[in-house]
């Protein structure tokens, strides 16, 4: 199966003419047809994909340099605007919205020759950890259809895991790339805040959102980042840090690397299976030459509160533009403006979105701003300082991604607090703006993947790829596959 091949090898073959992009795209659509009625990872397919693939093939045949992702089929989360394709953030309120622009990061990968296969399913407005709150239906975990794929980038994770595409984009605000990557056995990277442009990505929480790749192996993630990253004059929060040749510079040797283990992450909340997986990995890495130290991230227990206050506050403001005036679905028959706003928004937003908007509105409101929003921002600094202190003693931090492997569909949906607590290991990296990667390491007794997380200092994605690659080699994961594929 071609889409099982690592991207860098595919690109080589495509450039040598041993393979055609059109064949890859066709395989992609066949796989989607075969599996996606069950998995539901896609919400929209790109009718122009074959045409685009053909163009790339022609250019390649003429020896043109098409780019580092020449001819590779990728999927894009429904949070990314793609010009002339419906973009809904999996919400009713954006039904029918066709943007006259693409997200900058979409433009970048298309300029590197990638072919967009379609838009993937996600939690509405990226708010969720299980992909159970999309208006486009639940996404199923390809490893076991009774289980969630994780969220909010559930569709992006599932389609890579089921070999429907070579790679996908997700967005990660509190763990939405890393957690579904862990639940579906793929690699998921959240870059440093500011590494990848946010322009054209439907905003959830502006100071936390980052786009990142989901792939079958670490080297592909590095290659995808090369295509996605870089300064964008349309995003004031996008860094001018230069793009590095991460994929070519991967150093597997972990001798001398010091890896920190936060004692707060290895508490009672962690399930035995995940703990066991981690401990086994730590042993292997030690034998590989890495040194482990215990580190202290004392403000970890405040991270969930700080995160949920900040992200909902920003979201309550970011989602105010969805009012039915200029785009999106307007509620019919409203006789006055106020009714228009109320009806459009009440009909258009799902429960989780409403809940978060209300929470954020509350946290910013007069009389509560200092105690909630401002307080949460101060705690955020303390959390970041914990990491800065830790990185004085270690090169990277290793920990779990989630307390358990993928849970069952419907298991946690009725308890928001429990759902929020899911993100305990991932959201600190978003608060601190640090890059984090999820790498699959093992499969549980019940046949569900377990991943581990690495966190590095700002702009040190190379460290994540280096150690991530070593983990890949040590565990012998070698792109393990769900049975249905």
């Amino acid at each position, binding site marked *: 199966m071609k889409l099982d091949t690592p991207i860098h090898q595919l690109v080589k073959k495509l450039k040598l003419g041993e393979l055609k992009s059109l064949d890859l795209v066709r395989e992609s659509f066949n796989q989607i047809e075969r599996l996606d009625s069950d998995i539901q990872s896609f919400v929209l397919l790109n009718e122009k994909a074959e045409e685009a693939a053909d163009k790339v093939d022609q250019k390649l045949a003429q020896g043109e340099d098409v780019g580092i992702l020449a001819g590779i089929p990728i999927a894009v989360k429904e949070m990314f605007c793609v010009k002339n394709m419906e973009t809904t953030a999996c919400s009713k309120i954006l039904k029918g919205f066709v*943007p006259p622009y693409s997200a900058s990061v979409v433009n970048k990968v298309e300029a590197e020759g990638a072919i967009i296969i379609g838009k993937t399913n996600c939690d509405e407005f990226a708010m969720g950890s299980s992909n159970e709150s999309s208006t486009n239906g639940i996404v199923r975990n390809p490893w076991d259809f009774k289980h969630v794929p994780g969220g909010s980038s559930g569709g992006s994770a599932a389609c890579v895991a089921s070999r429907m595409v070579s790679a996908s984009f997700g967005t990660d605000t509190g763990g939405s790339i890393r957690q579904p990557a862990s639940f579906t056995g793929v690699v998921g990277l959240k870059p440093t805040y500011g590494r990848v442009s*946010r322009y054209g990505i439907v*905003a959830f929480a502006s100071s936390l959102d980052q786009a990142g790749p989901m792939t079958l192996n670490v080297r592909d993630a590095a290659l995808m980042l090369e295509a996605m990253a870089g300064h964008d004059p349309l995003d*004031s929060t996008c860094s001018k840090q230069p793009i590095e040749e991460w994929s070519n510079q991967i150093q597997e040797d972990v001798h001398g690397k010091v890896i920190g283990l936060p004692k707060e992450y290895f508490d009672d909340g962690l399930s035995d299976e995940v703990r066991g997986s981690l401990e086994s990995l730590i042993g292997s890495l030690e034998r590989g030459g890495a040194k482990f130290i215990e580190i202290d991230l004392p403000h970890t227990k405040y991270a969930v509160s700080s995160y949920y206050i900040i992200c909902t506050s920003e979201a309550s403001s970011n*989602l*105010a*533009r969805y009012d039915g005036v*200029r785009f999106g679905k307007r509620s019919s028959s409203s006789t006055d403006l106020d009714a228009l706003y109320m009806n459009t928004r009440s009909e258009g937003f799902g429960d989780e979105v409403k809940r978060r908007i209300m929470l954020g509105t509350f946290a910013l*409101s007069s009389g509560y701003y200092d105690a909630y929003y401002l307080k949460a921002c101060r705690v955020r600094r303390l959390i970041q300082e914990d990491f800065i202190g830790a990185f004085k003693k270690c090169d990277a931090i290793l920990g779990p991604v989630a307390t358990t492997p993928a849970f069952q569909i419907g298991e946690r949906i009725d308890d928001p607090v429990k759902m929020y607590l899911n993100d305990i290991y991932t959201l600190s990296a978003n608060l601190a703006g640090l890059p984090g990667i999820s790498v699959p390491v093992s499969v549980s007794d019940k046949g569900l993947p377990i991943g581990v997380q690495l966190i590095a200092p700002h702009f040190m994605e190379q460290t994540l790829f280096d150690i991530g690659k070593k983990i890949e080699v040590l565990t012998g994961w070698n792109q393990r596959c769900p049975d249905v594929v």
Partner: protein
Amino acid sequence: MSYSDYESVIGLEIHAQLSTKSKLFCSCSTEFGGADNENTCPICLGMPGTLPVVNALAIEYAIKIGLSLNCTVNHNSVFARKNYFYPDLSKGYQISQFEKPIAEKGEVQFYLNGERRKVGITRAHIEEDAGKSIHQGDSTLVNYNRSSVPLVEIVSDPVMTSPQEAAEYARTVRSILLYLGVCDGNLEEGSMRCDCNVSVRKKNEAELGTRTELKNINSFRFIEKAIQYEIERQIDLLESGDKVVQETRLYDSAKNKTLSMRSKEEAHDYRYFPDPDLLAIPAPSNLVKEIESKMPELPVEKAERFCKSYQVTSDDAFVLTQSREMAQYFEDVVSRCEEPRLAVSWVIVELLGKLNDSKLEISESPVGASALGDLLSLIKDGTISGKIAKTVFSTMYEKGGSALEIVESQGLKQISDDSALIQIIEEVIETNPDQVAQYKSGKEKVFGFFVGQVMKLTKGQANPAKVNDLLKEKLS
């Protein structure tokens, strides 16, 4: 009851649209008067995923404004979101500044009835404008051309005490903005908007009364009238036992009244918080100093300098410094002819008179400053009289040409030669024996007749002072 038992407390919020070419957060044009939504893009329309990027020139203009108002300019001032719902607000929030504005704690000085006044400036901050909604039949139409145009909002301390003072303050601020070249100050078109906060209280009462905010005032005259009306309305209310409601009121210039806005007045909770899509605005001291070094002399300083250096009255100085162009013109004339007093009267009376009649700005004047200066030099050195100079000036204005050319080609030189004048005077005396007799018998008014006759014979070119002296001599 007398209105004079009360005093009023007035503060002004002036919104100045900056004359940058592009908008504050996107590259759309700020040009006025385009077709509906012609100057819009996904960013100023608030489409999903779009982000703001600050216009560097707008920041420079804002710093200039802060400096001209003698404010402290804050390094790393913060953009904040002001959240509310209205159709002309495309993102559901306005990007403005709240806790740390770009400039604060300044002061403006001006003259009111000959007295020097100082009004404190609380703050000046930068923000984006909203679009425009127009009511048409049973719907509202929205045009976002104005959405995200850069504004600087200048907030005065609430220390003004009369409508006249408020209007004069507003005129001064406008003049400063025009001097800086950062705003075209057009109240009618809306590139400058004044909102007035008005409250009243009994004299000697320490507590401030409830204030109302007046909007929709588009001339300085209306500022005075609106505030005057509102002060009286509030006093009437209080005197009849009612309370003043804190609200926004619109000024109706046709009826000269302020009217409560019909919509329900809800207390707005704007939920200000720092905009996470933007970074702090850098205004380090070296940048601020550089901007300061390039700033022009401002109107009040210039007027004071004119009074001192050129012995200009303060009323005249005010007229001359109304615009940078006018002041520059005046100074160019003075340096050319070195006669400030002549320059003052000629610029203010003769030149401005003609410009106003032909509806031209000083920059469009058909007579340049050096040309006028040359004309005045001819008066100064006696080549022509002031009266003749007026006709020469008319010719220069209508047809062009230099003063000297016109004087020579039309033979308008003043006759100052004694012998020539004596000849003419003797002729006039000879041919008018009756009037001579009348004069000699004591009718001094007849003197004017002789002057007139001499002027007639010399086609107005006789040197008037000489004619006077010589006539007196000859008639004695």
